[in-house]
């Protein structure tokens, strides 16, 4: 066995600013392992406290619309077809055909090979969610396991960007992270970020999935969040949705606290996306409360906050219909997918 010497890491502006220009794995390790430990009991109590808020009437109506506006409507099944992606896009543009005041969702999230169909189906409605249009997000880098060589991960990313994806959801190499090879994870994120570049000089937004369900401890989640931000993530995302537990409120709160700390140090705003397991409007509203109380309400826009969900939108639509008609609605009044 050979002991690897400190190696230079691919530089990013963020890491250079915080850790100095001579960026080495040792410096990164010292920073990540020097982070203060997470008070797990306190974190869970804080999250539980935030879930007790009662959001009613006009606040609830605003919250429901915000959930839809910041939702990445997702289909990530082995059985996905172009037809299913087209119906997903139709739903993304017009979530509720019985009520055209319903906002469009922020983005559709699909596998890389489905990006061309999503782009084609969106047509003129493809664009910036802040302007009421719908983005296309693609999962890449051998999603969901991330077990492939870097060359394949980069090719996966480039192909999705070339096909018109506006956002790339990458997974980190959890095996490398858990065995302490922070430099490997860092370099991969940097490389994937470079692969997000388009020929015209712009680049697709990069969301980095930590897969917190596999990271075992809150301390690891905190380290991984810092690592992803230092390596240049535009968004940090909890989970792939393929591992249980997926997004939980305490984990989201912890990641938001890292985002808040980063904003305090640098003034830079990093986005957050909890994904997987958020099925009811009630749950989703708790996440909104947590965002507002942790990083502030200005984060509740599609550029800084997303829900990754497939069935959440239907529940929100049922609640919306209830508020509009005054009586309870049922699953017969929303689309199946």
């Amino acid at each position: 066995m050979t002991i690897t010497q400190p190696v230079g890491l691919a530089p990013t502006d963020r890491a250079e600013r915080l850790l100095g220009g001579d960026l080495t794995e040792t410096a990164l390790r010292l920073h990540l392992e020097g982070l203060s430990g997470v008070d797990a009991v306190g974190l869970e109590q804080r999250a539980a406290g935030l879930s007790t808020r009662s959001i009613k009437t006009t606040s609830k109506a605003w919250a429901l619309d915000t959930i839809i506006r910041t939702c990445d409507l997702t289909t990530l099944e082995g059985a996905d077809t172009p037809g299913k992606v087209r119906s997903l896009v139709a739903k993304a543009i017009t979530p509720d055909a019985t009520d055209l005041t319903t906002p469009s969702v922020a983005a559709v999230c699909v596998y890389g090979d489905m990006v061309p169909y999503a782009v084609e189906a969106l047509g003129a409605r493809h664009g910036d969610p802040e302007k009421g249009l719908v983005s296309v997000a693609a999962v890449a880098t051998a999603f969901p396991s991330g077990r492939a060589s870097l060359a394949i991960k980069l090719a996966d990313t480039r192909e999705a960007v070339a096909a018109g994806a506006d956002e790339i959801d990458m997974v980190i190499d959890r095996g490398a992270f858990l065995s302490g090879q922070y430099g490997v994870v860092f370099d991969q994120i940097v490389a994937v970020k470079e692969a997000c570049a388009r020929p015209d000089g712009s680049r697709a937004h990069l969301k980095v999935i930590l897969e917190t369900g596999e990271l075992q401890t809150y301390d690891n989640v905190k380290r991984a969040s810092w690592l992803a931000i230092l390596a240049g993530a535009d968004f940090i995302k909890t989970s792939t949705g393929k591992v249980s537990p997926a997004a939980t409120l305490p984990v989201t709160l912890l990641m938001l606290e890292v985002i808040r700390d980063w904003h305090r140090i640098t003034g830079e705003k990093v986005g957050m996306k909890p994904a997987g397991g958020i099925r009811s409007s009630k749950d989703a509203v708790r996440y909104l409360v947590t965002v507002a109380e942790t990083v502030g309400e200005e984060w509740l826009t599609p550029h800084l906050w997303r829900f990754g969900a497939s069935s959440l939108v239907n529940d929100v639509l049922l609640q919306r219909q209830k508020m509009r008609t005054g009586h309870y609605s049922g699953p017969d009044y929303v689309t199946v997918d």
Partner: protein
Amino acid sequence: MSRLTVPKTYKLYIGGKFPRSESGRTYEVVSAKGDFLANAAKASRKDARDAVVAARAAVGGWAGATAYNRGQVIYRIAELLEGRRAQFVDEIQSSEGVTAAQASAQVDTAIDVWVWYAGWADKYAQVAGNANPVSGPYFNLSVPEPTGVVAAVAPQGVPSGSLLGLVSVIAPIVVSGNTVVVVADEAAPLSAISLSEVLATSDVPGGVINMLTGSAAEIMPWLAAHADVNALDLSGAGSLEGAKGESWVDLQLAAAETLKRVVPPVAGIPRPALEGITAFVETKTVWHTKSML
């Protein structure tokens, strides 16, 4: 040495579990003479909504069970009621102020109603269905299928009806494979609560029968307008009066908005009848080719 009595605070029965009312409200149940008997949960519209969710989730399994199996499960309710008859007689006596003999007769009849409907489980389709005559080489068959989720109100304040009235409403609904959300007699809910305890220990899957206690006048409008309820049984709703003087007709109007099947009120307690079952089924007609040989 004198002993303090232990008055009970009962809960609702939703999805096979016994939750408190989401609203946290309770009301006092009193005997025919006005003495305190127990506290019962006063269900809110959100409890009704939760009950509909539980009932909807249970439809697939219950309607998909074989008719023979449903018959056995319903017969088992009768068996369990028989085993706990003393408790039911006691509760009916105190809440209705009737004699032991009258209470006992009501429990007997309620048990017989369960047995009567249990027998119909695998037979009603033969009577209500049909092989239709056609002039071609194929079969044309009409078969009854359960409607889905039924919201019902038990007879309110009918003499000798706190158990029998409730059973006469829910048994014909569930026998064909429907699930039910039922609001018990507001003034005399003890039999309904004890029946929930019987159901919870019987073989009836959770969510098939959901029992709400509280004000039917308050809860029924929400169930009547609920888009995920398929039918409305107003057998026991004749005497209902809402806060603004609404009657059961307003419930029927609300139900029409989402095209529900509605059974209007009857005087007293519904009699056991095949029509009780066929009121909550839909007829499906299919054809199938015949051999030409």
